[in-house]
């Protein structure tokens, strides 16, 4: 691996993050919405509390957050704090910082979505590979169609269905949350706690998995149909290889390459992929935090979540670029 390539790739990542940060800086300033004013309007709506000298309070807050400085100075301050990993303070849970809130929510999201993304990838790619293989029985080939129909259902809706039937009517699984709050005071490292979390995560995970397996299956089948007609698969059979070996080493191994790119991208969007479902199940991840922030007009938290989403995408793209040559020897580090 060439050092120059690594450096260039890293600079690209920095560039993406910088672009994202800049856009996130300018979007709110392009609009006439004043976050502080909106926040107070929200407080007034929900509690009826209306401070008499609102304008002065807003001024004071603006001074505190540096919103009264010249734009360029604000921008430099902002970039400086982003560099230090400071995304500002939350308006709804002042004085807690955005980074603090995100740090608390992120592990839940990362754990749930990593597991579901991996499972979805494995199941979907497996079914797709079998469906594109000419020797598979026809019922396997037919599996893609119902999965595609299921993929037309938004995860949120399937989630509603599962809550109603499995959690609400049959009472098989908990309705919401990430752990039984009566049993545990907070997250702890014990087998009981982990099992409890797993029980709570089953329904959100199912909602996410069942509604996206179809996409993976369809993608893999498409590639599989192409690869299965390639000369090297044919020649492998001429060589007298066993079907299983041809299937894995010649067919799957080649057809899976675009899927791996898609997997990396899926990992990149892990932060945002579960927003709606997390919300539905009151799962204390990024989705619920975002929902709370939207309801409370907490713009700094919204931007903070946007920021880490983009960083996650940038990092995962860098990881694809760095690992892809290991999977496909035709791609070299020094090209591009």
């Amino acid at each position, binding site marked *: 691996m060439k050092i120059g390539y690594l450096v260039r790739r890293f600079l690209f990542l920095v560039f*993406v993050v910088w*672009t*994202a940060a800049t856009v*996130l800086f300018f*979007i*709110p300033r*392009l*609009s006439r*919405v004043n976050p502080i004013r909106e926040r107070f309007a929200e407080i007034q709506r929900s509690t009826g509390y209306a401070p008499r000298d609102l304008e002065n309070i807003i001024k004071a807050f603006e001074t505190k957050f540096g919103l009264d400085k010249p734009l360029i100075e604000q921008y430099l301050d902002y970039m400086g704090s982003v560099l230090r990993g400071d995304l500002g303070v939350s308006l709804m849970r002042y004085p807690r910082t955005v980074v603090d809130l995100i740090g608390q929510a992120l592990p839940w999201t990362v754990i749930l979505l990593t597991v579901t993304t991996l499972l979805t990838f494995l199941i979907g790619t497996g079914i797709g590979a079998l*469906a*594109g293989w*000419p020797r598979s029985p026809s019922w396997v*080939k037919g599996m893609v169609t119902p999965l*595609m*129909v299921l*993929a*037309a*259902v*938004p995860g*949120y*809706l399937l989630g*509603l*269905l599962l*809550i*109603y039937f499995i959690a*609400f009517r049959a009472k098989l699984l908990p309705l919401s949350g990430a752990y039984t709050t009566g049993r545990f005071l907070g997250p702890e490292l014990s087998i009981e706690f982990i099992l409890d979390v797993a029980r709570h995560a089953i329904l959100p995970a199912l909602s996410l998995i069942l509604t996206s397996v179809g996409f993976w299956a369809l993608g893999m*089948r*498409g590639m*599989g*149909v*192409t690869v*299965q007609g390639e000369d090297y698969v044919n020649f492998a059979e001429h060589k007298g290889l066993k079907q299983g070996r041809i299937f894995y080493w010649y067919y799957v191994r080649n057809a899976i390459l675009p899927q791996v790119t898609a997997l990396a*991208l899926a990992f*990149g*969007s892990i*932060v*945002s*992929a579960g*927003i*709606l479902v997390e*919300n*539905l199940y009151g799962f204390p991840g990024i989705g619920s935090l*975002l*929902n709370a922030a*939207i*309801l409370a*007009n907490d*713009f700094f938290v*919204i*931007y903070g*979540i*946007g920021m880490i*989403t*983009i960083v996650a*995408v940038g990092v995962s*793209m860098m990881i694809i670029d760095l690992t892809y040559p290991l999977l496909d020897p035709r791609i070299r580090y020094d090209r591009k």
Partner: protein
Amino acid sequence: MQLSVPIQGPSSGPSRLTLALRYLRRNKSLLVGLGLLAFLLIFSIGGSLLIDTSTRAYPLAAPSVQPPSAEYPLGTDKDGRDLLAVMARGILLTGTVGIIAGSVGIVVGVVLGFLAGYYGGKVDSVIRWVTEVLITIPPLILQIIIASTIVDKNKVTIFTMAGVASILSWMGTARVVRSQVLTMRERTFVSMAKLSGMSNLEIIFKELMPNMLPYLAASFVGAVMGAIGATFGLEVLGLGPAREPTIGMTIRWAQFHSAIFNQWWWWVLWPSLALIAIFASLSLINRGLDEIANPRVRRSE
């Protein structure tokens, strides 16, 4: 890659309609998808004509939370909307958002894709770079930021929704068009057209466009789906048009009032079915169009 476009070609022999119907019989996805779409359209347009949806789909038009009955076949919601009227109007509204955003997406995507593919060079690099970056960023998060910041939450209309969805609806089209133009640029009929003195624009519209129709149709449908999906996400999160009975807002209100825990199943069921039907019909149509564009996929079934 061969394009077998059934609707094109000289109309000698069996009429175009017969040919199209005969083709549809083989392309099951397209057939079922179009059928479902036709059903949704008939339901919503017919419903809008038969009942006054402009009042009955809005609060206080009916008694609160009535289960389905002879008078209110689909029931009513907590705010007193007649759900039959809500469904008829909601499908149209949701469809409108999708079609506006899809159209904007296809126009912008085609223009950018053509520019990138046809002229190449710096134009291509810039367009491709922006497309690739935007395509990797999860759309929902960007739309949430835009919708929550730029738009005043209380003044959201379906056109605002369409606008927000439009911003990120063109990348897929641009990418497909670009790669198609690149492969077609090298083909003989384009160089023939160049030799015979056609201008670039003429070549684009007379020679390239017809060949790309199935791709364009597929990416249009894709853009519409993307827009409806994004809108649904925003609506569920409370960033939707609070006053309009779109499908997403109906689900949002049902959820907001804990309809399922109150056993008001009808309030959740109808909009869910409608949304699933919309997505299923679009994704089947998309698959059908894909079969037209890439006949190879079909063979595995």
